[in-house]
């Protein structure tokens, strides 16, 4: 494969290169003509719903409850969050899920990335195969594991039963099993992402230092551990944060594989929110939960952005 450069796009456009020329009015109109449609659409489909959601989060509104007809209740929904033990449970499940899945993906993905970087002729082909789980419809990914782990005819169940790891009822029947299945599915789907990032980082690593280390008598393991791994640490950091911001909002695969069960063992944050908003139709509480989630993701994104910014400055 030919991911050669990690051209981390610098978030800041280097200002001096763009000439500060006086815009005549025609140019300004062209510019407006080019940007305005995007802005208008984004305002209508994105900004307005967000603001609407924010205002909804301070109300009590449910289309199925005549008493909750949109009266203002201030921070009531946000206060409710802190007393909601189900929400607390969902947060714990989500944290455990994100930490476990992303940690496993990072370790395995880095190893695969290193392996890919050593492949020559077959790298392109192997990468193509590794891409498939990432690009496949997430819901169908959940479906695949639902097939594989089916207690009656799943081939994964058969394999695990042969190894004596699960009983007749199958993996998804026990809380621990269902949770493990979820983590395994995420690792299956997203480890290649880390591997690709690592591969890109390795192919962009400065060769001079690597050669210097080789001349100094580094063996291959030392070379990777002491020289190349520190070089690609920023890339791995970015990849981890990308993954974390996505794993936090995991929904599709969980929805079809376990639906959050058994009990609340796999009720991750988004499944919980879906139940609040679209099963109980408690829209205003759902909006508040969404805003809170967004704030958490935004903080993660801010860290990510600072990462990218530092890399761009180098």
């Amino acid at each position, binding site marked *: 494969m030919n991911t050669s450069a990690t051209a981390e796009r610098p978030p800041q456009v280097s200002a001096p290169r763009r000439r500060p020329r006086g815009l005549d009015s025609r140019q300004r109109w062209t510019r407006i003509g080019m940007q305005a449609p*995007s802005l208008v659409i984004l305002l209508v489909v994105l900004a307005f719903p967000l603001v609407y959601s924010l205002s909804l989060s301070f109300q009590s509104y449910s289309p199925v409850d005549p008493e909750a007809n949109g009266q203002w209740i201030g921070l009531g929904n946000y206060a409710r969050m802190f007393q909601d033990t189900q929400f607390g449970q969902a947060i714990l499940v989500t944290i455990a899920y994100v930490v476990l899945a992303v940690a496993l993906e990072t370790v395995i993905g880095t190893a695969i990335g290193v392996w890919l970087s050593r492949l020559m002729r077959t790298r392109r082909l192997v990468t193509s195969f*590794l891409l498939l789980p990432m690009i*496949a*419809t997430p819901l169908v990914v959940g479906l695949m594991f639902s097939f594989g782990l089916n207690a009656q005819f799943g081939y994964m169940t058969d394999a695990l039963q042969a190894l004596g790891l699960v009983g007749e009822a199958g993996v998804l029947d026990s809380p621990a099993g269902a949770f493990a299945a979820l983590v395994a599915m995420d690792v299956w789907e997203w480890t290649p992402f880390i591997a690709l990032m690592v591969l890109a980082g390795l192919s962009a690593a400065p060769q001079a230092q690597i050669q210097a280390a080789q001349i100094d008598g580094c063996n291959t393991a030392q070379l990777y551990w002491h020289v190349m791994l520190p070089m690609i640490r920023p890339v791995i950091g970015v990849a981890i944060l990308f993954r974390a911001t996505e794993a936090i909002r995991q929904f599709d695969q969980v929805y079809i594989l376990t639906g959050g069960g058994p009990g609340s063992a796999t009720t991750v944050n988004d499944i919980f*929110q879906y139940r609040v908003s679209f099963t109980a139709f408690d829209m205003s509480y759902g909006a508040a939960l969404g805003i809170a989630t967004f704030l958490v993701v935004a903080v993660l994104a801010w860290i990510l952005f600072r990462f990218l910014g530092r890399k761009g400055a180098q």
Partner: protein
Amino acid sequence: MSSMSTVTGTRAIVTGRRAPDREVAAPSGARRRIFGIITAVVATILIVVYLSPIIWLVLTSFKDRLDIFSSAPTVFFTPTLDNYVEAFVKKGFTDNLFNSAIVGVISTVVALVVGVPAAYSLSRVSRGEGFMMALLAARLLPAMVLAVPLFVLASSLGLRDTYFALIAAHLTFALPFTVWMMRGFFLAVPNSLDEAARLDGCGEWRTFLQVILPIVRPGLAATAIFCLINSWNEFLFALVLTGRHTETLPVAIPSLITPIGTSWGQVAAVGTVTILPVLIVAFIVQKHIVTGMTGGAISAE
């Protein structure tokens, strides 16, 4: 030692006359080649195991009920197209396929037509950071945050179960993605080209359409493909905004799974039809997918 000689003996047969000479000359080379072959075999097995969930889904879609529930996992069976016929001819999953396609194509076209000029314009000004930051925030926005207000708004406007609502919802990620990606590609085109075109008397729009746009055609393709796939794969918005008339393929799948009497063969058939176009496209235009997947962080050559 004996296994070693067996392997080299086999190799001598396979590769004919040339092999023995080289083995005498460089035994370590031969060992390395055998090691390479073993690695290749192991790697192939690992890849097959890795892709087994996909393979299993596709295989199941060609099985009849008996083969699906047979006690031992069967790889060899008489393939049947019954599941596909049942699901797509008799049960109307063709409509879902059509819905998915229509929403994907329209949202992609709108995102490109509207977003690409904006991306170009933003790549040519120094003050674009605010907009770009907002776009990044939009890309990181959890879909669940938008699903609630979009559902309430669509319901109160009577727009639920319309293509319009779902396309609008898909634009919330397609448009920021397009602007973000395309701006990156435009930034790679030197400004001097714009200047030259302008000196030749091109207006801004003509410079953009006839000079710059053809240069970034690969980027355009990558962005379009990725928008299409994202829309095709999207589930949550479609789940809450569509109804009987506009249901896309991913939404139709869970409704097939019931506590009793699920027709797993048909589920597999619909699942296969859902992922197959994506997988084929991903295989053909791998480098574009890598670019899009990593948000332009990795640019393939």
